[in-house]
């Protein structure tokens, strides 16, 4: 029987999300249609918008439904950059981090390579926390020339929580818009868009128990990132295309439940994670808890097992029925060294020896014990495995 401890990659579909989807699929009507059936599906969509807005502390008009995290990050980064640079050609610096998800790193680099953006990166401490002093000095150096700051709320690999209000406060001196990829944060740590001072924030449905393929970009009313998709002008003219009310409905149900359960789950999963980490350190004393000392999300445990390779560990654990991960695999399925760990200052060898264990709604102590049993069996084998 396999045990799933990879909830940060995607997590179990919530019953409420499944029911909401199923109920919505019984409707017929384009939410843009003016007739009664169109109005009915429109209502489903707008109720969903209300729920998601409430779940993340935003105004309902700020929720732009889309296909998920990658789209949201691309839209925010490219859209805000284009908007800013159109108004002031000199305003073309993007401040970001080397530990972001590829859905941020890649559009940022693409703008650098193709659209004349200048990309600068903040520094991190070895435990993965953003060095706010380095951000402060970048901002005071480049001032109004900074088009955008994009820094994630919770790191998807290490679980490190960034102090987003502190980031936006630094940015506010020069009215610099700040975007945050909150995909790994929403539903797992308290999020309040209004209080955060953010201009835009990316959410994804399947990380909170909705199906894959739905998410939202939260865009402050004051902002108008240029659209990636032009057409019928849906979603505040920011994201054209027939509005996907069934998935929006499902996402809203999942988001609402995740946030309602947040305090309880943070405490439950936090305790489980502490047990897991303590047991791992006992079983493998040479292991490193990656972001120890940093403020970390309760559902995320991230380790470096020196002397092993991630792909061998994952292979051996998979053979024991344990599903965990090690950063992100590329399109071809190749596990490279974790760019997040490299960005934090770990060596290439250490960054190639990590394992991420992430808990979710269905995780139990039994799952954790099954992982530990497997780990004790496979770790000595992994130490002997020759590298690829």
């Amino acid at each position, binding site marked *: 029987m396999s045990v799933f401890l990879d909830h940060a990659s995607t997590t179990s579909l919530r019953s409420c999300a499944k029911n909401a989807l199923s109920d919505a699929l019984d409707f017929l009507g384009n939410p843009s249609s003016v007739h009664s059936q169109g109005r009915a599906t429109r209502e489903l969509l707008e109720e969903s918008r209300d729920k998601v807005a409430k779940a993340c502390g935003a105004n309902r008009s700020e929720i732009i439904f889309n296909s998920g995290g990658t789209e949201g990050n691309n839209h925010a980064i490219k859209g805000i950059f284009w908007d800013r640079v159109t108004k002031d050609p000199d305003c073309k610096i993007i401040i970001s981090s080397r530990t972001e998800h590829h859905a941020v790193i890649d559009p940022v680099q693409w703008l650098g390579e193709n659209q004349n953006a200048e990309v600068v990166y903040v520094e991190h401490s070895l435990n993965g926390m953003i060095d706010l002093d380095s951000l402060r000095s970048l901002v005071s150096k480049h001032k109004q020339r900074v088009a955008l700051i994009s820094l994630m709320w919770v790191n998807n690999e290490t679980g490190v929580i960034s102090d987003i209000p502190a980031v936006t406060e630094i940015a506010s001196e020069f009215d610099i818009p700040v975007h945050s990829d909150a995909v790994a944060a929403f539903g797992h740590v308290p999020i309040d868009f209004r209080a955060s001072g953010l201009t835009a924030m990316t959410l994804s449905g399947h990380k909170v128990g909705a199906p894959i393929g739905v998410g939202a970009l939260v865009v402050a009313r004051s902002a108008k990132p240029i659209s990636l998709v032009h057409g019928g002008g849906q979603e505040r003219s920011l994201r054209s295309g027939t509005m996907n009310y069934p998935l929006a409905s499902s996402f809203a149900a999942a988001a609402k439940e995740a946030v309602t359960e947040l305090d309880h789950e943070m405490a439950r999963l936090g305790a489980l994670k502490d047990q897991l980490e303590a047991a791992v350190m006992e079983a493998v004393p040479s292991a490193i808890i990656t972001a120890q000392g940093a403020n970390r999300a309760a559902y995320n445990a991230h380790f470096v097992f020196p002397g092993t390779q991630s792909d061998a560990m994952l292979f*051996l654990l*998979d053979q024991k029925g344990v599903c965990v991960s090690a950063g992100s695999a590329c399109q071809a399925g*190749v*596990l490279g060294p974790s760019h997040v760990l490299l960005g934090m200052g770990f060596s290439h060898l250490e960054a190639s020896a990590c394992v991420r264990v992430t808990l979710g709604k269905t995780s139990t102590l039994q799952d954790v014990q099954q992982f530990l049993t497997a780990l004790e069996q496979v770790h000595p*084998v992994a130490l002997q*495995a020759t*590298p*690829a």
Partner: protein
Amino acid sequence: MRVLAAMSGGVDSAVAAARAVEEGHDVIGVHLALSRMPGTLRTGSRGCCTIEDSMDAQRAANKLGIPFYVWDFSERFKLDVVDDFVAEYQAGRTPNPCMRCNERIKFAALLERGLSLGFEAICTGHYASIIEDGQGNLELHRSLEMAKDQSYVLGVLNASQLAHSMFPLGATASKDLIRQEAAARGLSVANKPDSYDICFIPEGDTRQWLKEFVPTDSGKIVDGEGNQLGEHDGHVGFTIGQRKGLKIGTPAADGKPRYVLEIRPKTKEIVVGPEEALEISDLVGARYTWCGKAPENPEEAIHCEVQVRAHGDTVSAVAAIVDGHMHVQLNEPLYGVPAGQTAVIYVGTRVLGQMTIDEARSKVSTSA
């Protein structure tokens, strides 16, 4: 037996894995990522490590119900195969990268990793057979289907590598049967075109590809007496026996075409001459190995056949080890054999050994 099936995404390795599963082995599929920057889609018959190939391999593994992983050997492949390929051309030789890949990646790095992770054998879709000689020694033999025989590129395997290798396709009479079997098994790759050429040169133009790695360095094209006949923009990429692309305006005195006879990296000269001068009578190499059990008296003449290209004809020869070098005296001539290529020695259908050719000697003068 715990078997690691190397799955390229092609039909041969998929059927090989299927047969290993059917024989009752505990099989796991692994695709080797060999390129640093894999292409998205396969183009034509070339390449074997695009993302599409990886996905094809995964589909096949799923169909067989076996676990599947992608292992990244791109760094080793770059060092051991690609860099070697470039260096060999720079030195005026013509390398065989598939051979190097088998020698250093598939049956070395992959095998070592497999053994260290508890596997007992590597299974591939090569057309060749491993036969036990009745005394416990394993021998590598040609496949039943001569047109597909790949024993040549496996000539680098030693006894211990043979002991951990499985080639389930060796006894199959034709490639068509493999395709039919793949279709019957519901494998999506049943009609996938074969791959040819060098996997890391997707466009198939070796000279053009080499130009990215080796600075253009022009030199003279000369005849056997040293008379300049033309110019080239870099000796790298020329190969012995090459006739096309020389761009020599002046015809030879006898009006016959001229061929590359020699590449002189130091002086940057390409020596050309008549076809007769390509005739080779002897091959010598310091880098040789025995495939399986070594001959008891390798210093004594071994009557054998030799093959110098993956799909080339064999000629009868006499091989012996002299002063640490393998010497192969050909009983009938071969034409245009470049240094750097591999000569595989056969006795009947058995692969006895191989050497990388350091020197191919001709009895004919370059200016003949």
